């Protein structure tokens, strides 16, 4: 379709940037990484502009057989497009966040970051089953090194835990992929999305993919690697972990589990809702009692991801669109929150909440932006998380009112732990002299946080620009699941629908 292989460029640019980084000194590596990620961001914007929401399902398609069963097959639909844009948007910010914070072995660090960007882009763009797996799994290596080399005190344990947990989940998926390739005689993801596996096999295939995506997303009870990895990773590592890597799990569900195994997915709806409900409430409660800022945000990520699984397995349009918006919104907001933690961590070198307090006095700019992201994380209308969480809850309510109740509680608890966190850090009296003496945001930090804040408002006020590219693709996923979608227990009829939504909405506030 295109003469220029845009998606390959998207993968190759950071890769080349990474190689350049290895051969230059610290500052050269910083600039090389920044330029490479900015070029990638420009490319992703170009893709977004060129993407035709009413056009073919797969656009910018490239295919080059590598013989021996694997194809260099790339192509994106609206869902992948937005996740690619999110990744490309966050990457330069991550590089900027590491500008001063990383001082040792800078070229290596930048090289790993760029390698990871290439692999993540590849996972979102891959149209071949095994190519996807190679990219998906390959991302472990740079992240392992980033956590292990530049992380905090417990970095070694956290890096092992991250690597082995995610590897364990993925290998089961690999077996399922082998079975799928053998049964359907194709490794093309678009072809497999239209292939009907026997219902009995779907059950096992779904579980195998669940093992991988549940760890990646993460879902309760396999989330325990996440707080460790987040707390120990350097700030930019946490941003990319929360902002993008977790999204691979949700992307996996919507790309593989739902359209490829609709029967299997339907069979496990109670399980998925159950796990999501536990995650939504339990991890929110855990977040409430954390004393470490990063850990608190890490647990809130798990809780927010429950909205994704709720929405996806509601199997209706509102639910899935909501899930996608939550993923995008959470990518922005959690990334920004980790950056906010990084800002004060760089000054005081502690993440202990009790060491801070009253920062709104000496850091008004910081307090303002932190407030914006706190409100977005709670899901205040007008911020990025609101449309997603709202749609996800509407969808969930149609599928199961009990699940929707759990989701609502999660929102209330989110308000509790986020406001409590904000209060302890920014309000109250200034307890520590060194915290009170911290300077406000530098120009560099403004440049990192302000674009995210702008995006947060854009998504909150006009989510249509994000929903539009995905609409047809979500419709195609829904068409695959029409047969099996849950009937729901809310018995909505047209005249009372507005009423039902209103009540649901009311319960969240």
């Amino acid at each position, binding site marked *: 379709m295109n003469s220029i292989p845009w998606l390959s460029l998207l993968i190759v640019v950071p890769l080349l940037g990474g190689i350049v980084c290895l051969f230059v000194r610290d500052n050269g590596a910083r600039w090389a990484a920044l330029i490479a990620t900015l070029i990638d961001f420009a490319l992703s914007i170009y893709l977004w502009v060129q993407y035709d929401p009413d056009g073919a399902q797969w656009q910018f398609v490239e295919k080059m057989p590598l013989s021996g069963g694997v194809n260099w097959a790339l192509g994106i639909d609206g869902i992948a497009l937005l996740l690619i844009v999110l990744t490309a948007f966050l990457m330069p910010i991550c590089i900027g966040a590491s500008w001063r914070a990383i001082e040792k072995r800078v070229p290596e660090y930048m090289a790993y970051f760029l390698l990871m960007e290439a692999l993540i882009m590849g996972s979102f763009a891959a149209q071949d089953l095994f190519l996807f797996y190679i990219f998906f799994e390959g991302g*472990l290596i740079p992240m392992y*090194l980033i956590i292990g080399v530049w992380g905090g005190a417990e970095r070694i344990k956290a890096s092992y835990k991250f690597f082995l947990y995610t590897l364990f989940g993925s*290998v089961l998926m690999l077996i399922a992929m082998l079975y799928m390739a053998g049964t359907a005689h194709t490794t093309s993801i678009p072809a497999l999305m239209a292939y009907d596996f026997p219902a009995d096999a779907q059950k096992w295939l779904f579980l195998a993919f669940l093992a991988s995506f549940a760890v990646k997303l993460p879902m309760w009870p396999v989330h325990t690697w996440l707080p460790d990895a987040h707390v120990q990773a350097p700030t930019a590592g946490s941003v990319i972990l929360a902002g993008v890597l977790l999204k691979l799990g949700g992307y996996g569900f919507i790309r593989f589990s739902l359209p490829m195994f609709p029967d299997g997915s339907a069979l496990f709806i109670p399980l998925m809702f159950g796990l999501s409900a536990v995650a939504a409430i339990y991890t929110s409660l855990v977040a409430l009692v954390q004393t470490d800022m990063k850990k608190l945000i890490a647990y809130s990520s798990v809780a927010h991801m429950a909205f994704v699984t709720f929405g996806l397995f509601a199997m209706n349009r509102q639910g899935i669109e909501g899930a996608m918006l939550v993923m995008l919104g959470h990518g922005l907001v959690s990334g920004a929150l980790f950056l906010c933690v990084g800002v004060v961590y760089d000054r005081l070198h502690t993440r202990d909440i009790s060491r801070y307090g009253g920062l709104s006095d000496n850091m008004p700019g910081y307090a303002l932006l932190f407030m914006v992201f706190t409100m977005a994380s709670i899901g205040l209308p007008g911020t990025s998380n609101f449309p997603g969480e709202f749609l996800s809850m509407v969808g969930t309510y149609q599928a199961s009112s009990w699940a929707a109740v759990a989701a609502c509680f999660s929102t209330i608890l989110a308000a509790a732990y986020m406001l409590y966190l904000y209060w302890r850090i920014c309000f109250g009296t200034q307890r520590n002299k060194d915290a009170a003496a911290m300077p406000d945001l530098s120009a560099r930090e403004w440049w990192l946080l302000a674009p995210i804040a702008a995006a947060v408002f854009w998504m909150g006020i006009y989510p249509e620009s994000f929903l539009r590219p995905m609409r047809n693709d979500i419709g195609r996923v829904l068409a695959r699941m029409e047969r099996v979608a849950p009937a729901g227990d809310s018995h909505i009829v047209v005249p009372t629908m507005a009423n039902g939504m209103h009540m649901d909405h009311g319960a969240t506030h």
Partner: protein
Amino acid sequence: MGRFSALLPELILSIGGTVLMMVAAFTGRRGSTLVSWLAIALLLGATAALVGAPSHAGPVFDGLVSEDLFASFGKAIIFPAAAIAIIAAHGWFERGTEHASEYAVLIVFSAVGMSVMVSASSLISLYVGLELTSLASYVLAAYRRTDERSAEAGLKYFVLGALASGILLYGISLLYGFTGTTNFTGLAAAFARGAPSLGLLFGLVFLLAGLAFKISAVPFHMWTPDVYEGAPTPVTAFFASAPKVAAVLLSTRVCIEALAPATDAWRQIVIFAALASIFLGAVAAYGQTNIKRLLAYSSINNVGFALVGLAGAGPQGASSVLFYMAVYVVMTLGAFLCVLWMRDSEGRPVESIASLSGLAQTRPAYAAALAIFMFSLAGIPPLFGFWPKLLVFRAAVASGFVPLAVAAILGTVIGAYYYLRIVKVMYMDEPAEPYGRVREPIQGALILLAAILISPIGYLLIGPLGSLTDRAAGSLF
């Protein structure tokens, strides 16, 4: 004459090896470099002789050996691997009292034995090839005869190897006694005549037990860590590569050519050995502090994965075994060449994993190469070591052995830990005392070449290598 031309590679090596032995005897230490280079030239010449029609002549000498593409594929891996083992020894033995020239000659003779192993299509040639390789290997293990560990390794290898040979011979005699033939096709015909008798089954079990010793599959692996640790490092590099390939290929041929009708009987054994090797290889490597010992367990672990492909039987399974061994040899030789470079400032070899500490900061390129080999041995994509693992799992799944594939793949997660540990020591720990510089440009180039082949660039080889292994495996059926 035609029959002899089919054996051209073996003839080159046998005659050339004998001549070299004389040269080595008369020139002593002075000629060691010359002999080494001549031996490498012989091995490369034998590799070149594989190209061409006569070497694919099929069964020759009344079915004693079968010069098919399968055998040629094996030899095409074994000869260069043996040549690299000679290059690896450069500068190694000069420090001691041994003659480096005899080392090269022994490797050549061992290569003849391996060559017979991969083309054997009769129990007699199987045994002759195996013993020829083993005898050379016993001497090689004890090559540094003034070193207690090396002598111990040689003795241990010899005693346990002799025991395994006895078991193997007993199995062969049972099979011969119950079928009246030593020929693989004859054996297959005998097994095809209804359910095998108890005697035949015993013969099969003993035969496979003997072979399991040679490929160091659990439960016949006990010699491996000790011998690998004790033997001089170039010898260990050799043991872990060429003889391993030869023995795995020999086992594949025996199982598929001679025992095909009894697939259900040997498959249970292979599955057990595969899983036991994978798990024991992975778990036992945890506590190791010596890198050679760790790589010994890694080789046990890897043989387990190759056996998973064999358990798949069928052309796809055999092809995946060939692919696996081809990539395995590159990874292993690369890793051992890196281990060879672990020397202190005075050039003495160092073997502790702790000494690798912080290598990424003192010697970044060296550390990156070793990290590539480690991630690749662990089977983590996007490195090439992932692909052969995928192929053996695919073969197992295609034959309906999904639980086997699941169990084996969980083994990779356990095994990943100790490969990661090496990477962790190199990348995340504080730098230890830096190694002395090793000035071996050829070895450096080989490490670089291996690292490039194992990097994602290797995926470009999937096509040609895949079609070659498919055709080579096809010649067994």
